[in-house]
């Protein structure tokens, strides 16, 4: 049986080896799509309906007559946001897929990218092997994920709130989050080790850092704010404080967690 974990595991090895992620993520050297808020997705949708739907359909599911492919599943010609951007910007030569108007601002092209990206993680289009209910139980019990993560107001504060993580992470990314937590740690979750003038060391998650000050939350959830010129030194640890679950959870438990996490979205 196709175990998502092992299949994706192979993909992930590739991805983390520096090549590419299956989808939804951009190359390391690009800053990623900066226009991917709900507002942008909506703007992309509106533009799509006006300019693209006559070939790709209002549901973006493609149209045999025009030969325009389904854009809601994995794309044949684009494996990254930048790739998708380029297709929309320059078209596909020799096909009915023409470039968008040359004077269309990049912003709007990125909004289209965001909109198409939002389709591919539509849960209705994705069939996952794991069980949501079992995943929920692993999350609070054996996995003890809730000691660090909140879901709908329940849980810890030492990791990101996962109440809506299914909206921002694909199943592949969720898998990677659990197996390889040290890749792509957002700066908010780096650890700062601060040594004050009296030599006292305090460590905490990096809530914010700027030119002259930094703020952390320590393991006891205390908030601390330091002016940089009033501490002896500080050190930045860019690794994750989350353990990897390769050893501690079984493949099927991981599958269940992926299914559960992917189901976490804004209700209604």
């Amino acid at each position, binding site marked *: 049986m196709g175990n998502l974990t092992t299949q994706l595991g192979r993909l992930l090895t590739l991805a983390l080896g520096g090549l590419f992620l299956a989808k939804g993520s951009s190359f390391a050297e690009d800053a990623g799509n900066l226009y991917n808020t709900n507002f942008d997705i909506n703007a992309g949708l509106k533009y799509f309906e006006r300019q693209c739907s006559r070939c790709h359909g209002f549901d973006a599911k493609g149209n045999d007559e025009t030969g325009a492919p389904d854009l809601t599943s994995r794309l044949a010609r684009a494996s990254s946001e930048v790739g998708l951007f380029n297709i929309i910007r320059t078209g596909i030569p020799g096909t009915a897929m023409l470039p968008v108007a040359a004077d269309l601002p990049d912003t709007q092209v990125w909004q289209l990218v965001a909109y198409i990206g939002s389709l591919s993680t539509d849960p209705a289009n994705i069939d996952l092997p794991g069980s949501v209910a079992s995943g929920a139980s692993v999350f609070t019990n054996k996995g003890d994920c809730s000691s660090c993560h909140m879901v709908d*107001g329940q849980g810890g504060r030492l990791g990101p*709130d996962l109440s809506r993580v299914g909206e921002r992470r694909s199943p592949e990314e969720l898998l990677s989050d659990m197996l390889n937590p040290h890749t792509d740690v957002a700066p908010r979750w780096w650890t700062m080790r601060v040594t004050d003038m009296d030599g006292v060391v305090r460590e905490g998650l990096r*809530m*914010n850092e700027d030119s002259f*000050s930094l*703020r952390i939350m320590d393991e006891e959830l205390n*908030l*601390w704010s330091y*002016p940089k010129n009033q501490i002896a030194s500080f050190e930045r640890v860019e690794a994750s404080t989350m353990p990897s679950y390769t050893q501690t959870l079984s493949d099927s438990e991981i599958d269940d967690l992926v299914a559960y996490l992917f189901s976490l979205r804004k209700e209604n």
Partner: protein
Amino acid sequence: MNKFSLLLCGTFLTLPVQAQEEPFQTVITPAFSPVTWERLVNAESEPENWMMYSGTLDSQRYSRLDQINTDNVTELEMKWSYQIPVIDRAETVPTVVDGVMFITEAPSNLTAVDARTGRVYWRYDHELPEDLRICCGRNNRGVAILGETLFMSTLDAHLVAIDARTGNVLWDVEVADYEAGYSKTAAPLIVKDKVVTGIAGGEFGIRGFIDAYDPVTGELEWRTYAVPGPGEPGNDSWSGDSWKTGGAATWITGSYDPDLNLIYWGTGNPGPDWNGDVRLGDNLYSDSALALNGDTGEIAWHFQFTPHDVHDYDSIQVPILADIEYQGSTRKVMMWANRNAFFYTIDRETGEFLEGEAYATQTWAQGLDPNGRPIPTPGMAPTYEGILVSPPIVGATNWYSPAYSQQTGLFYVTSFDGEQEFFKRDEDYEEGERFTGGGGRYNQPMDAFHSSIRAINPATAEIEWEFPIMPRSSAGITTTAGGIVFTGSADGYFFALDAASGEELWHISLGARVHAAPMTYAIDGQQFVTIASGNVVYTFGLKED
């Protein structure tokens, strides 16, 4: 640098203060600690913190901090400013708990910053629908806090609970349907183990109410309608079905008396605002003060300032509670300078009217009768052609917080002497559409009018002093044990007056309209005073040597 012990010398610090037994440990303590109900009840004795919209449950906006005082206020300098990223006018009164400041922002966002530097800990951005129904800008005025949870109103008429340490959403409940014209802008009020909150939408024919929610689950505990339904006392003060669209929004924060276990809350105009023909009667409980049981929300008493209002004279003012000397004895009173231009002193146990006088120019009433009910001037209702009335629609004052000083015993209010032409129109109610039945027009430039900060003696309702401002102000007021009245003006000044005499002590041009009330707090013995102006939150303190 001045130490906190200085503050303890203040004449008015009579209560023992646990938090200040070891005022300033040399050991550095982390920021923020949970806010219990006991802390909120005794908020006055923790003047280093500002733990709710009006500072204390009695809403006096009087701080015991006196490091900044009449002698040294000229030494104030800016310590930091915080720029709100979404441009709109800021009406926020920040909350400070143990060195962390919580700032609400347009449209319905919230940020936690280090109160010493203004630098961010976290932000919460509330997602909003595109088709909001809001009358008067994308505002939010502040949060309430209980335990480690912040409670905030949002423009889509939700109430959200947010973790004070991380900004995570704990729950998000719909208080009312924004598509039917409901919205929320005011800071909620914590009453024991409940989050009490009101609703806006008085220009949309809503039916106002006051709600209480469970702080842990977000479940509605009780709702008290500000417009009584069929069979309830007061429903017969509305002709026909007019109560259904009766308005009486509850869009500013109320007060609470723990001894009497009464919540005090103001209500807004009846709907439609300017056409009273379609809602004959007194229109209870529009333009009223409601006293509600702190556990059940039941109405203990009401006092209607403007029966059958046709001028949009919302009683959306923060009720100030104090025990004052009145005719030879100590009386538990509520003080209220109303949008209708009258100042009232009311017994807050019973709702009995004690004193009342006009404190600003008004032409709509001949005076108050012995029960405090206005005697309307005939012919002052809006007409199709228009008729000139004082005060204008914005009122003699409005939602901007007044203050009371325990040192002077005076009540301070931002007041406006203006006039406006009022019009009446015929309008049918349509859900989610504006429902006002008219409007107004100024016949003179703003600069022709007169505005001032007025100090009123609550025992006599007489004006003790006034400080003129140009042309108008929509700023709130804060007083301190340093003998100061802090406030601002529409032409962009933040300034300090002598609370006893009204003399100007200090001013600074911030360059943009002050549309919020100042607040004050302290960290490690240093007092700060904060005010939002334009889109910026400014914090001042004394120069350090």
